[in-house]
């Protein structure tokens, strides 16, 4: 049996040759994503804007009567509902904004939910209430600010760690790559109008972690090569590092994608958005490690002297570079 090799040995692809174009495209994508978020907005779930989400299954009906539902819920006088199918055609979620005045009196939101579920049970005897999410304005504000803080906190803490473990240029490069990943994911959610809820914040943090995984593997090899080939041109050195880690990058990305495809196709409907965001994040994260995190090192003038302690660097380089001893 021959083992599978996804990437041929000793590739020598000039990735960094395209760095200016790639970075220009990336910046355009970031700006485009921001514009999308500004223009279309995110389809926030009840977690972040408050309100009610009722999940129902029509057990005896093949297709949920969405249009009719929209009219009937609208007729209750609490504004227009957002009705979406999730999973099967007979499963829908009905999302309502908080009724006016619910800030002062949270009871209003309960009354609204009671009326909607009451109407559903009366008009559709086969309906099954699968779940209710009800979040007040105050709690949703807290969840939103916590979400923002966790993202900002994770990005800064990770950057700091990279700075300590590598050098400040690497920290800056990682931060820039992470910003790219997060911005593009936001853009994706503005474009598709998939529901943006707490699970998506979890997905974003996982994407950050994953993207950084990739960046660190490349950076680690760059650091190693910087000590090993002290005279090599930086662009050639970055290309070499990316090529040397290419097989691993492809393999890991593929295993992640395989796991995620299983989640998207067979997994529970509630985490469809999460899995989709992660799926996209694997691509964005892998790309950003090569085309965002690495070129920045060139512009920030990283060289063999960026790693200060010479005795450690010298010893390391000799040991790894000593190819004579190999038989």
């Amino acid at each position: 049996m021959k083992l599978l090799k996804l990437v041929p040995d000793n590739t020598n692809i000039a990735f960094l040759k395209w760095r200016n174009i790639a970075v220009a495209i990336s910046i355009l994508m970031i700006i485009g994503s921001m514009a999308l978020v500004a223009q279309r907005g995110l389809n926030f779930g009840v977690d972040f804007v408050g309100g009610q989400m009722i999940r129902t299954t029509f057990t005896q009906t093949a297709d949920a009567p969405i249009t009719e539902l929209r009219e009937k819920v609208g007729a209750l006088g609490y504004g227009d509902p957002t009705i979406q199918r999730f999973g099967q055609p007979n499963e829908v979620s009905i999302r309502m904004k908080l009724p006016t005045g619910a800030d002062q009196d949270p009871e209003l939101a309960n009354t609204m939910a009671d009326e909607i579920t009451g109407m559903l049970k009366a008009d559709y005897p086969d309906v099954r209430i699968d779940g209710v999410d009800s979040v007040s304005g105050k709690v949703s504000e807290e969840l939103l600010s916590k979400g923002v803080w966790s993202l900002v906190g994770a990005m800064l803490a990770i950057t700091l760690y990279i700075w300590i473990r590598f050098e400040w240029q690497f920290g800056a490069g990682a931060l820039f790559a992470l910003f790219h990943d997060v911005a593009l994911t936001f853009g994706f959610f503005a474009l598709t109008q998939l529901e943006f809820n707490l699970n998506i914040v979890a997905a974003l943090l996982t994407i950050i972690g994953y993207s950084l995984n990739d960046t660190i593997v490349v950076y680690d090899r760059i650091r190693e090569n910087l000590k090993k080939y002290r005279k090599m041109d930086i662009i050639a050195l970055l290309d070499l590092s990316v090529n040397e880690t290419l097989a691993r990058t492809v393999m890991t990305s593929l295993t992640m994608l395989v796991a995620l495809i299983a989640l998207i196709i067979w997994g529970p409907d509630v985490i469809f958005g999460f899995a989709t965001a992660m799926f996209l994040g694997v691509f964005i994260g892998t790309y950003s490690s090569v085309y965002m995190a690495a070129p920045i090192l060139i512009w920030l003038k990283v060289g063999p002297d960026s790693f200060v302690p010479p005795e450690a660097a010298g010893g390391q380089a000799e040991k790894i570079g000593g190819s004579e001893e190999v038989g």
Partner: protein
Amino acid sequence: MLDFPRWKVISISLLLAFGVLMSLPSLFFGESHKYWPAFLPDETINLGLDLSGGSHILLEAEPADVAETRLQTMEESVRAEMRRANPRINIGDISRRDGVLSFMVRDSTQVDAARDVLEPLTTGAGLTGQRDWDIEVRDDTRFVVSPTSAGLENAVDNAMDTATDVIRRRIDEMGTREPTIIRQGDTRIVVQVPGLEDPEALKELLGKTAKLEFKLVDFEADPNAIAEGRPPVGSQVFPYPDNPSGLPNIAVKRLGGISGDKLTDAGQGFDPDTNAPVVNITFDTEGGAKFARLTQNNVGRPFAIILDGVVLSAPNINEPILGGSAQISGNFTVEEANQLSIALRSGALPVELQVVEERTVGPDLGADSIRKGMIAAIIGTAAVLAFMVVTYGRFGFYANFALALNLFLILGVMAIFNATLTLPGIAGFILTVGSAVDANVLINERIREERRRGRRVVQAVEVGYKEASRAIFDANITNVIAGLLLFIFGSGPVRGFAVVLIIGIVTSVFTAVVVTRMLVALWLRRTRPQELFI
């Protein structure tokens, strides 16, 4: 590399065996593990409400309400104590505004006496010696009593503690199984009830303050003034929705009533005459004596039964009620009477609570999520396992073995900590599968690379593990950072995801690096291969 001491092999194996053993009870869902011999572990992971089905309800109290209630109580005590003083101290112009109580002592010679009455009312019961209230005298005769911040904080804290107990009693009374009731922060209570049939009834019960009062009706009051909500001096106006006279309000005497917090029992029953559902209550000795006195002195007059600021009914006192039990009539259904008796039995909430967040998942959806999550996990894992063997051969098999152990270890560690598995947690499992093999991919690719550079087998493996470990370490630390922030700022199910992620990172580094290294070393030592098939 070949040097792998026996004690290391033994301790690693023992650790793995322990982890797998701990995971076993959780793998046998249901009760089966309860029949196991006692020396086997019986700690299991908990299923989150999004998987088991149930309700998560977040209740919040408004501290301003506590302050207001406290001020009201203070006003009542001041009125009562000043009247009881000997000689009686006349006070007037009583107002509660901006969170402070102020009143005038009509006779300026009584100011010192008034202060003596006030002093014991305003000192805290605690041992700290801190004052609960500040007393200030302005313009010689005006007393201003304002709550100190320490006193108020203490009051809110006590109120929330009592409220948590009351909520617990109420939910126990409902007969639900394994509820979780936790105070959260300064003014919140989390209630989690698995597998609930009717969350509406629960919310209804939790939202009820159940403050019961009996007060004499002020039948001399001018009906027009009452209708406009203007009470006569010494009286208060309460809404009375079921008033037989058709008026929306009723006036009751401010003083001379008793409160319904001195009950030993309450139960739903039927009125012997009308057969309407009622609530029968039994006072404790002290409350019974007070109630007897109230009814004895006011035979022939009506008294109002007030629940949470709304009058339920205002029956006439036909004869003194001396037995210490009474009947509350109102326009109840059997169910309402039943709920009210539960609320009364478990005591009144010292503060009004409101539902600020509710998450309910039906049992069908939860079961569906478990089933789909399992299917996705099995397919995803199987695909990754196959992929690894096809790519790395024997080394892929070792990685897979480590991965399988890793899944048991995650479950085992979660069981030790009694952690909760949520739906995003299942996603975390699948992601851990995807990323755990990354460590082996890094190692194996590095070994391939070193072989290509011409290193001998043992040396290539050695350098592969050594050089890859650095990146594995850094990458996993950053993932732990992201996971920790998710755990700190996340809530509910998302926290469950963070838990799986963090545990998975730690265990996967152990299995993917340490365990595979041991397996590879033992194999190399046994066979001394000249060529690596990787």
